[in-house]
């Protein structure tokens, strides 16, 4: 049962990803990416990562992709002229070869990795557990990210201003 679910979700994610990189219209790409994110969120849920499951949907699917869609709409980006006009076949072939080669190697290694999930408590991946680690062991990093977000906000405001 679990395996079926896993294969379904991963299949959806991967297919949506493929769909994303091959569409002419940016809008189609964006929407398929949303599907990918949702699929991934589900996979997180399967992995007992409850907080992350939610965060994924909120942040990625809900905020980042909305921003992207917003920009697409704002700039009124149209479909590209020709199929894969945006991509050169040469580069595609090269990347394809590289990707296949790397995949070959990587999967060869991965074949030796066999793991079974150890039993974890029901609190694993819950808000309380993650929060506990986040605010104690990784407090500094957390604060730094906060600073980063502040800088980003300032930067974005500056960048997006129209030049007078």
């Amino acid at each position: 049962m679990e395996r079926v679910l896993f294969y379904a979700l991963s299949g959806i994610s991967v297919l949506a990803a493929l769909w994303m990189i091959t569409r002419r219209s940016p809008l189609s790409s964006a929407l398929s990416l949303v599907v990918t994110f949702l699929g991934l969120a589900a996979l997180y849920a399967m992995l007992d990562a409850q907080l992350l499951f939610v965060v994924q949907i909120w942040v990625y699917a809900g905020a980042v992709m909305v921003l992207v869609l917003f920009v697409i709409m704002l700039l009124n980006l149209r479909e590209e002229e020709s199929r894969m006009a945006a991509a050169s076949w040469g580069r595609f072939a090269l990347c394809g070869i590289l990707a296949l080669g790397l995949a070959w190697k990587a999967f060869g290694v991965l074949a030796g990795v066999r793991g079974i999930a150890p039993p974890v408590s029901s609190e694993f991946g819950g808000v309380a557990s993650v929060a506990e680690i986040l605010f104690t062991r990784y407090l500094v990093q957390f604060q730094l990210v906060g600073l980063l977000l502040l800088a980003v906000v300032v930067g974005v405001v500056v960048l997006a201003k129209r030049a007078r």
Partner: protein
Amino acid sequence: MEATWLWLIPIAPLVTSVLCGAIALATRNAEAPPRRLVGWLACLGPGLSFALSLLAWTELRGLMPVGRMLSQTAYRWIDSGVLQLDVGFVVDPLSSLMLLFVTGVGTLIHIYSTGYMHAERGFARYFAYLNLFMFSMLILVLADSLPLLFVGWEGVGLCSYLLIGYWFEDPAKAAAGKKAFVVNRIGDFGVLIAMFLVLWTLQGVGSASLSFADLRRHTEAFTPALATAVCLLLFLGATGKSAQIPLYVWLPDAMAGPTPVSALIHAATMVTAGVYLVARMHFLFALSPVASTIVAVVGAATALLAATIAVAQNDFKKVLAYSTVSQLGYMFVGVGVGAYGAGIFHVFTHAFFKACLFLGSGAVIHALHDEQDIRRMGGLRHKMPLTFWTFVIATLALAGIPPLAGFFSKDHILWEALSKPNVVAPWLPPVLWVVLVAAALCTAFYMWRLVALVFLGSFRGDAHTYEHAHEAPPSMAMPLVLLATGSVLVGLLGVPHLLGGSNRLESWLHPSFTLAQDTHLESPPHEGEESGGSAAETEASVGHEPVSAHATSAALPESAAMAVALAAGLLGLGLGHQLYVRRPQAASALAMRLPAVRRLLAGKYFIDELYAAAIVRPLRLFSDRVLWRIVDMRLIDGSVRLLGWLTWALSVAFRFAQSGYVQTYVLVVVLGVFALLWRVL
């Protein structure tokens, strides 16, 4: 014996040279240089050296003949593993003699120059160079090792160039200076290679310092072949410096320099350096009969060649130049047959009368306002009597008329050449003798021709010049008188036993020419005069050695030879007088009957032209076509430009990495990561 003041002998003229040079630089824009100051300063240097040389000589006389040597080691010069060489000076009988006449005649010529160069703007510069020359020559003579001698050797070559090209604004004169330097350089190359060979040979023996004392101790390290090679290379240097075949061609051209320069450098001192070198290295030449024979043969050939050329020359100084070349040939015959004392004796006497001749020519040229063509002279004996008489005395000395100096020295060489057997070519001695006698005949002939054309008869130039001709001023006349006196007297130092003398010069020089080991390799210097190199011999007792039986039998051929040589000299003088005084038309008639001979002789056997065509021109072509066009422009410049082009090409290749396209950058990163992962996985 240690003498720590020896270094002062060469240093005195060096100091005055620097001072004169400084004055020359300081006054180069002034109207007239400070003549009195420079003149006194310039004569002071060599004068001091002469006084010190006299001191050295008297000290030397006080020593026993065996260890008769003053030496000083100044400081360590080269300290590098195999070669440990000190700068050191040595005064032994040979160098004491050289010192005396180099500094003596040198000082006289300096005094003469103050008069001769009076009108020159570059007065101070002249004396700076001349003093520098004295310094170099003294280093050469005093050196106790081959490299130090070579330093002086090169120094005199440099000063010769500077002084020949003294009037450098005239391109012909500058070219003469250059020619002298280049030809000398070829000889110097020989000396250098010889030094390297010696060092290479001696390093196996342990110590290598290239000092003469060291070399004498280790002569057994030299195989005959090696000794021959070294000697021939050294002789190559000597042919360059002392103007023998094949490198004599610079000396006639060197007459472009001021006449006192010709007198000092190209008659009395520098050109004798080659003979001195051979004499210093006598122990090595003794090991190689082949080399010694070659030296003698070349000397004799040069003597005759130059004498025949001098017969047909019309430039006053060129006649004297070829005469010098010829007389140097005699000296080399002397040292070539092993009669080192005889050769050096001739060096000594020649210095006096040749310098006197040159200075006399200078007086004439100066009086006639730089006229040098003897066809436009004549009848000057009345206008310049002192010059005339000193010139005649020196001429007779050169021609070998007794009791003047040239007779004894020349005759000694002739006798040694004839009587010493030659192991390499047993037929050689009589041939050498005949050649030298022929040269003596020519010598007397062309010298009397010179006297006749210049001083006798009537003046053939323009009257205006004749009007203004005057006798030499005292600064120039005094050296003439002194040198003429020397030409008369110094011969008496070497009167041979045959004529009742004791040949004091020979016995004085003898300690310098003994070998380190037993002296059976060297035949006694003169039959019956003294036993070879035995110790505890004082100078006074030499003449009273018991004369062995074969001395009397040797006396007959010797006196016969002497008579023949004298006859040749007198014959030459007579012929010259006949053709140029009594029947002047006969000379030109003779010349017209043999036009080819006249052209050959006047054209100096076209040797210069031969060299120019066979050596100079191909070298120039090679330098231009190959060395410049190909090596310099293509190879060297090309490789530099190649570097530049490579940089450009590489930059073109790498430029894609800066395309500005983000995806290109990402691609590169990905490729890198890919490579990394491939290795890791």
